[in-house]
């Protein structure tokens, strides 16, 4: 057996004379016809669109991206002023807002969904039934209703002047949740740098420790050093730079709270709606993934004396992951695309801003093309990453 495998050579395909049979020819003709027909249809559509746009004197092209927008935007991650900035920047604000809600939504939905999925398999009757009910109820309600429900609910809080509050720093009103933030100081950048360096060093040490473990069977104790690198060193940096710490609290001034950070009701409603809805689907994916791992794995692990938590973490979940990742990718894409329902509750995501833009400029085709291009890019990026992750965690088999 071993001698055979060593002598195996890559097989070279025998050279074939090119010979066209009738069926080959027929295949080629069909393909040419179909491709030709499709190209013809595309040409007709593009030509017709252009001709009609010209006939109606409707402006075309992407020149509007450089024009001053003038459209106000409620919340923005980057500096945006409608009187200075262009449509291009306004649309970019929209892209960032979409990414912001999608990324946070994906993380939270994954955590919540995984917990609920595991909960459904719990031996605790109450927990299993509650999580089952959650899944069945939440996934049956259309997402738009989720969003409208949460948005209406969040509007029921009292106005800013009667805001519910915890001490004088956290305020809950129909304008959102106001929380205090620490004012930014240069020292924080240095602390972040120290933390990053610490992480790099720990990573290196872990590899050394692993090598030592493989060689000697003993794993050196790393955590005291890690704590030192991640907490003590940045702490010293902070102290050395004068220990800056100024808290900025939200204060009611005029109509609204000024200062601090505000989580707007629109963003909160969209995020809560997306997370709660998608978590129900993710829970089912996780549950089915875990149940697909053969019972023998559980029994064998139990025979080794592992506890339930350890079995789940070390034996079952890693194997379930291979089944979970592909459908999970679809859910992540769903969150991203579903975030476009934001338009119903006034969160200004990409679609909302692009809609306004195309309405103010009248350039619908360009606006829709922009939306499609952005969603395609985001979706393909998620797919690519998840496929890479899937390939990495797949069982290596021949």
């Amino acid at each position: 057996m071993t001698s055979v495998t060593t002598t195996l050579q890559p097989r070279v395909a025998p050279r074939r004379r090119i010979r066209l049979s009738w069926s080959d020819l027929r295949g080629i003709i069909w393909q040419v016809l179909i491709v030709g027909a499709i190209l013809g249809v595309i040409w007709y559509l593009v030509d017709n669109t252009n001709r009609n746009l010209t006939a109606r004197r409707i402006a075309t092209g992407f020149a509007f991206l450089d024009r001053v927008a003038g459209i106000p935007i409620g919340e923005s991650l980057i500096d945006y002023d409608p009187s200075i900035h262009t449509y291009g920047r306004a649309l970019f604000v929209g892209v960032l807002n979409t990414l912001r809600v999608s990324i946070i939504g994906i993380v939270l939905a994954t955590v919540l969904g995984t917990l609920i999925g595991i909960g459904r398999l719990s031996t605790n009757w109450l927990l299993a039934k509650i999580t089952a009910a959650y899944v069945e109820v939440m996934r049956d309600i259309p997402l738009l209703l989720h969003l409208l429900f949460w948005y209406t609910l969040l509007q029921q809080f009292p106005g800013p002047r009667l805001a519910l509050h915890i001490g004088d720093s956290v305020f809950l009103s129909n304008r959102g949740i106001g929380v205090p933030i620490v004012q930014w100081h240069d020292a924080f950048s240095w602390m972040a740098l120290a933390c990053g360096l610490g992480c790099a060093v720990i990573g290196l040490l872990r590899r050394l420790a692993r090598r030592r473990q493989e060689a000697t069977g003993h794993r050196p104790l790393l955590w005291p050093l890690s704590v030192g690198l991640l907490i003590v060193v940045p702490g010293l940096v902070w102290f050395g730079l004068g220990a800056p710490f100024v808290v900025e609290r939200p204060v009611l001034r005029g109509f609204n709270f000024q200062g601090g950070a505000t989580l707007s009701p629109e963003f909160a409603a969209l995020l809560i709606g997306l997370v709660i809805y998608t978590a129900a689907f993710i829970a089912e994916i996780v549950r089915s993934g875990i149940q697909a791992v053969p019972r023998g794995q559980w029994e064998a692990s139990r025979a080794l004396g592992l506890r339930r938590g350890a079995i789940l973490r070390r034996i079952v979940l890693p194997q379930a992951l291979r089944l979970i990742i592909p459908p999970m990718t679809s859910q992540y894409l769903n969150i991203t695309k579903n975030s476009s329902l934001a338009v119903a509750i006034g969160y200004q995501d990409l679609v909302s801003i692009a809609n306004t833009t195309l309405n103010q400029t009248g350039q619908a085709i360009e606006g829709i093309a922009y939306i499609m291009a952005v969603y395609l890019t985001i979706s393909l990026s998620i797919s690519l990453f998840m496929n890479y992750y899937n390939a990495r965690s797949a069982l290596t088999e021949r």
Partner: protein
Amino acid sequence: MKRHKIAGWLLGAGLVAVTNVVSSGVAWAQGTPTQPTAAQGSGSATLDAVRQRGEVRCGVVGTVTGFAQPDSQGVMRGMDADVCRALAAAALGDGEKVKFIVTTAQNRFTALQSGEVDLLARVTTWTLGREANLGTLFTGINFYDGTGFLVKKSLNVKAAKELAGATICVQPGTSTELAIADFFRANAIKWTPILIQDVAEIRAAFLSGRCDAYSTDASGLASFRFTQGDKKDDFILLPDIISKEPLGPLVRKGDDKWFDLVRWTLFAMLAAEEFGVTTANVDAMSESKIPDIRRLVGLEGDLGKALGVDNKFVVTILKAVGNYGEVWERNITPMGIPRGINNLWNKGGLHYAPPMR
């Protein structure tokens, strides 16, 4: 492998084709309705299409009392709705032959461009950009409006400039949105916009206190306040009108005859008010000796024929909806909006119809 590649290409090409259908559906779905067709037609493709169809397709707002909103019987009521009826009366001789198509602030221009509606009478502001970039033509002004602010009385705000730091509910894709941004920019006031597309949702947000102020055309605010019934005194309309918002019906570019008909339908209603011709007395006007009136009601001249319709088209309009003043009395007066600049030119207002001759 090769097969898969080809399949992939086909799929890709198919996708491109599908997206093209979606994006070009605007122009594609209707072919070219703006070109004059048969020689024996009216010279207006839209008018010919309307006659063949037997109804005028009219894009309206559908949610604003006084302009276009269905009553308890499901009949569309309001000033814009009456413009549609007047046009149907002129074009088809029957004011009820209108199909009302409710459009949103965001899809209205596409609906007009694509030919889904024959005209848009949807509280739409006449601006240079909309006429120059969107392939549309405004046929005139049927309501002189301006952007205003509605606030809760309990807020104790007396003027728009006191709204510094306020949160304001606005509909996206409107000229209001741009007007407010301009106003606060000019006065260096910070504000927070809440932009919700759906009119019902944005009003709910304002009522719940999510926004300090609700802004749109002053007429729309008055109409909204009016619909609050007993609670309407909890809200006040700030005295500031921060922009000019001339509202009027608009049509597609490229069909001048249709444009003429819509424009002169509006003027005919104004002229009728000016000459004192109403629904009630239009029949008696056949006895009139005044040349202007005789021309207006089709006793002399060929005004209707010049527009491609019956010479007695104004009589049909007046029997269907009445003159401009009557339309105003029926739709706008109940909301408590004074006539103001919407009066006729000789009564201190801005409405002025050119000579109908």
